[in-house]
């Protein structure tokens, strides 16, 4: 039976803290507790084909960096679909646009869509996280495990 929770961690691992979502997903993919109930995807960007997967689950959780938050701070947000989409779609979507895409294309959406965003300020051309974000990653893992345990 398909798992009903989808976790998508995304970001550019060659741009410092932008890779926190991707790295979080990589770690979650090794977590047996999480993987027992959730499918975990590590993506470098959100692409239209993810819409089909999203349309088939009850809950989707996005993980990403956010430059507007203080470094290391984690914000948990409910997400609603956005139906304004860039005409080219040649590079990337954001989570709300992807939800809108899923809704229009497959006429289905998860009952619950949310994002866990970690504050980040270092987006240099490096393939590692800043110490603050690295430390915050462990907290993020704990929050996700708590979400998964509550959902189970």
């Amino acid at each position, binding site marked *: 039976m398909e798992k009903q929770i989808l976790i998508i961690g995304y970001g550019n691992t060659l741009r410092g803290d932008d890779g926190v979502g991707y790295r979080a997903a990589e770690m979650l993919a090794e977590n047996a507790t999480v993987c027992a109930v959730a499918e975990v995807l590590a993506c470098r960007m959100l692409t239209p*084909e993810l819409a089909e997967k999203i349309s088939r689950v009850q809950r989707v959780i996005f993980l990403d960096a956010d430059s507007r938050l203080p470094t290391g701070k984690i914000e948990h947000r409910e997400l609603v679909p956005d139906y*304004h989409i860039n*005409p080219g779609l040649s590079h990337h979507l954001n989570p709300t646009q992807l939800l809108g895409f899923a809704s229009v294309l497959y006429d289905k959406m998860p009952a619950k869509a949310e994002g866990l965003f970690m504050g980040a300020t270092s987006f240099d051309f490096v393939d590692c996280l800043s110490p603050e974000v690295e430390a915050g990653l462990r907290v993020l893992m704990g929050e996700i495990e708590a979400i998964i345990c509550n959902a189970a």
Partner: protein
Amino acid sequence: MNRKIVIDPVTRIEGHARITIQLDDKGNVGDARVHVTQFRGFEKFVEGRPFYEMPSLMARTCGICPVSHLIAASKACDQILAVRIPETAILLRRIINLAQIVQSHALNFFYLSSPDLLLGMDADPAERNLFGLLRQYPDIARDGVRLRQFGQQIIEWMANKRIHPAWVVPGGVSSPLTPQVRERILATIPEARGIILRTLDWYKGRLGSYQEYIRTFANFPSMFLGLVAPDGSLEHYHGRIRVVSSRGSIIADQLDPADYQAYIAEAVEPDSYLKSPYYKPSGYPNGMYRVGPLARMNIATQCGTPGADLELAEFHCLDLGAVLSSFHYHYARLIEILYCIEQIEKLLNDSHILDGNVRAFAGVNHLEGIGVCEAPRGTLFHHYKVNAEGLVQWANLIIASGNNNLAMNRGVLQAAQHYIHGSSVSEGTLNRIEAVIRAFDPCLSCSTHDDGRLALQVQLYGAHGELLQNISR
């Protein structure tokens, strides 16, 4: 009083361009030009870098067709190494190149061009995009997503990364294909084939409604150029250059790509960063030629796969001689997608596809390397000169889309002369001019960052430079 119309930026293309249309005092189009407005500088900043970095560096030229640059760059490096790469590596490089052509063509056809083709050139710009397509033609939109996913997945499964993968390297590829990945790819072939066959069906069914565009979108005699196999078949990875006239007769055949400077020269115009390659024996600008899917369908004797060959035969019925209208790039793109899918399946069933020997190793044995392949948009040339330590001293690139620069300019002029009369210019008219560019599917850079709010501004200037009218959308 002369007037000038400026379309800036051109929307739903890869990269940035501006179109300038000059009206005469009767309101008829006197001239039109396409200006490529971004400067990249790759040919200069790679100087001093080790040659083996070229594939990874050059892949960053583009986010849509990085595999083409990886392949052309690696082939140039193969020459510097003076190696003959293992046969299995050639098969694998072919597969990943074909996968990229599928995803790139799918992007242009479904995401960039279908809004015009299905919703109409005059549709409300707020709806004339992928979301509009999703609402009115969800099945076709889903097909587009799945087909692009097919190509990108193959790249990711083979090379571990769908954009800027590092798997194609000088001497071959960095790792062999596993049986699991092979089976995974083969399992996706039937769906992809189904999608392209039904896409061809509906597209051919609508051709009658596109007659005005067929007549007016860069429809003129020109040469066509590209790679062919020794027997004249369609070829994307290796082969030799063939040049064909507008009548379909072969002007030059089996030219060595490494001798490209003997038959291709590049002109520079002051109003664009895009160079203008031309066929040298015919001089400039008479040596204009076209490359890409339309050219490849015109120069190839056959595709070499059953379904694509049937489609090619039907395609050739469109015109006597070569098919000339650039609107038919869309049709040619679809045939190529079918060919790529069929060819990927054939290559995956080759008895050597899982062999472990996939890379040749050597040092610097030649101080010059030229790598040529067919990118989605046309023939791509990478030419490097290195010193004895292998550091790049000089580089020249002829980018696929650059080959089409002269033809794009002429096409925009032709469309502008047909659609623009007087000072009243509708939004739909501007979109038609842009659609001529879109048919060529130029990859002017990888830096498309449109966010759905791109403003198109058209300014009409009088003969003395005074602003007469300002139109925005």
